[in-house]
């Protein structure tokens, strides 16, 4: 029996793996079913967005950045517009700001609904996926009605938004929000108490707050680890300081908390959208900005809280109509980078659950 031995082996997870949400490749060092080491390999979706943006005017960058993080493309639009507005000190009309908040929060809800479905599917429940997408569709319908596209909006522009809200948007939006609020009970009934779901998520993939901060984890993943840090509060942008909402925080930092936190955030976002719809003033929806506008030389790093975490863009202007440098910072980038630090010594199935609850989206990582 002396020649019987066990050995560790390498498992190549991805780039075409159903639960890597795109084309992430992870080389896993496995001991049986147990993951000993993770080495993420990214770049399969690299489209050189930053370089492309350096060769485009400010207005042209926005549709390119739509593709940066297409699940919440509104926030990509917004963060670039915010950077350009800060560079050129543009005043944005009130109505535009309200519309922006509505769109950003609707997009956050849509993204979290997708998260709900995808996470459930990664843990093996197939039906919640369709339920999540069903309500997401109603939000995408609103977007299509407003700006004409369902995913790559190109809606929020430097100085405002590209079009005013269409006729009948407000009642339809209220209706969609009411439906989602009602359906949240269904979502929670399907998974929250389900013993299988609980054993798969509770205590799995605990991300300590210290590690999370060290690796730059942000957004719901950070808040699930007990750090109350939301840019809508801590570095306010737009008109978020006028609305009343809670920042949900949970303390265990495991998959279950990350999941629950996002469901809580949907509720808060619904609340914000309702307030914004009620407070929507009349007026201009866009400040006068030339499509070839040239912000004065300088640099700014704008960051907002999107559904995944901190979405930042570092724009340097040299006074010409094209930016000198556009550096995008997506939350998922850090969320993948942190995996080797805390997701080891788990089973393969847990790694899938952890990856799903980190809510990673690959185009944001590869850019």
């Amino acid at each position, binding site marked *: 029996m002396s020649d019987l031995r066990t050995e560790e082996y390498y498992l*190549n997870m991805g780039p075409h793996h159903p639960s890597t949400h795109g084309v992430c490749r992870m080389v896993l060092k496995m001991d049986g079913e147990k993951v000993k080491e993770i080495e993420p390999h990214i770049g399969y979706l690299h489209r050189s967005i930053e370089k492309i943006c350096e060769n485009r005017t400010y207005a042209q960058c926005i549709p390119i950045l739509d593709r940066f993080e297409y699940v919440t493309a509104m926030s990509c639009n917004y963060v670039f517009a915010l950077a350009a507005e800060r560079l050129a000190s543009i005043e944005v009309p009130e109505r535009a700001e309200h519309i922006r908040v509505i769109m950003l929060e609707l997009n956050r809800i849509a993204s979290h609904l997708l998260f709900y479905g995808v996470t459930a599917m990664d843990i*093996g429940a197939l039906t919640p996926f*369709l339920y999540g997408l069903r309500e997401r569709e109603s939000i995408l319908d609103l977007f299509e009605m407003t700006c004409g596209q369902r995913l790559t909006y190109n809606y929020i522009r430097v100085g405002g938004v590209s079009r005013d809200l269409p006729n009948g948007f407000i009642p339809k939006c209220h209706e969609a929000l009411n439906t989602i609020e009602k359906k949240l009970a269904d979502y929670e009934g399907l998974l929250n108490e*389900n013993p299988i779901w609980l054993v*798969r998520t509770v205590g799995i993939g605990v991300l300590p707050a210290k590690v999370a901060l060290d690796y730059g984890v942000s957004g719901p993943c950070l808040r699930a680890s007990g750090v109350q840090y939301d840019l809508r509060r801590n570095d306010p942008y737009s008109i978020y300081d006028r609305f009343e909402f809670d920042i949900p925080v949970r303390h265990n930092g495991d998959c279950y908390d990350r999941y629950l936190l996002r469901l809580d955030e949907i509720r808060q976002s619904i609340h914000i959208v309702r307030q914004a719809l009620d407070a929507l003033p009349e007026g201009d929806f866009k400040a006068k900005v030339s499509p070839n506008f040239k912000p004065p030389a300088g640099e700014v790093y704008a960051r907002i809280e999107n559904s995944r975490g901190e979405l930042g863009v570092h724009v340097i202007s040299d006074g010409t109509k094209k930016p000198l440098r556009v550096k995008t910072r997506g939350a998922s980038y850090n969320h993948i980078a942190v995996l080797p630090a805390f997701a080891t010594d788990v089973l393969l199935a847990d790694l899938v659950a952890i990856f799903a609850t980190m809510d990673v989206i690959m185009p944001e990582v590869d850019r």
Partner: protein
Amino acid sequence: MTFPVAVLELYPLFRWLSGVLESFGFSANTVLIISYAVLGVIMFSALSIIALFLVWWERKIAAHMQQRFGPMRHGWHGWYQTIMDAIKLLQKEDVRVASRDKIVYFWAPVICFVAAYLAYIVMPWGKNLIVADFNIGILYIMAVTTFTVIALLMAGWGSNNKYALLGGMRSAAQVVSYEIPMVASILTVILFVGSMSMVDIVTSQSGWIFNWFIFKLPFGPIAFVTYLIAATAEANRTPFDIPEAEQELVAGFNIEYSGMKFAMFFLAEFINMFTVSALAATLFLGGWNGWSFIPSWAWFLMKTFGVVFLMMLIRWTYPRLRVDQLMEFAWKFLVPVTFANLILAAVIKYAGWHW
């Protein structure tokens, strides 16, 4: 083992067939062999049709649960969609891995397929509708259905793929673990019937509905539930579908199979599901017993499809367990419960506190 010839005569068809054959001057043995061959073909086609129907049904149920349509293109609500799928799979190029273990890789789907069909030799489809009534019928079923695990292990090993190997190992561990609670649940039934013959088991539940084993309080329902859980695991279905866990192992043991070989695994999976459901119907739900205005085979099918429906509902509602939790559940929960239940049943049987 010799097949009991007596059971064969129950088909008018076979009486007619043997009459015809004998008139052509075939000897009795030849007639018997031909009859069995014809019977085999009938069973095979019936089961294939059932498997294809189950695929379609599962897709429809899943679709309607998720507020979709599911297959709609071929025929009324796409009823022959799966037939077209099967034809497509048969025509497909058989892509094989270069570094496979040739023999093992080839035989795995065959064994899986055959093992799935073998159980139907002793399955009582209706009153006097059984191929062969062994006196060890249920034991035989337990034995041949376990062949599947060998096939899955072979598929996992022969594919020379780590995902497939993981799937094969998982499946072996899972099926071996869940065999125990399954048998223990079945034993409670056998304990009362006193026979392992499928016909005996069914006839012992005849009469009114409370003769069904599931209504034998208090252990009947427990045995049924534990059996159903173990059976779901045996059939590799969610929440116990870890051997092919799509999100973890991509497709598990059948990751390297394509075309017809994949179709064989796929159909075998659905036939296995039908087998365990049919067993549940036979053992716990009175088999083909029912009011006589509906033919007995219809009762059997209705009950079986009822159990299948339940399994589908479970599949499309629940998440998947993790591999160690699955084992834990089997050994720490199901095995104690089924054995306690078995002892309880034995005590009740011994004391005579039952009807």
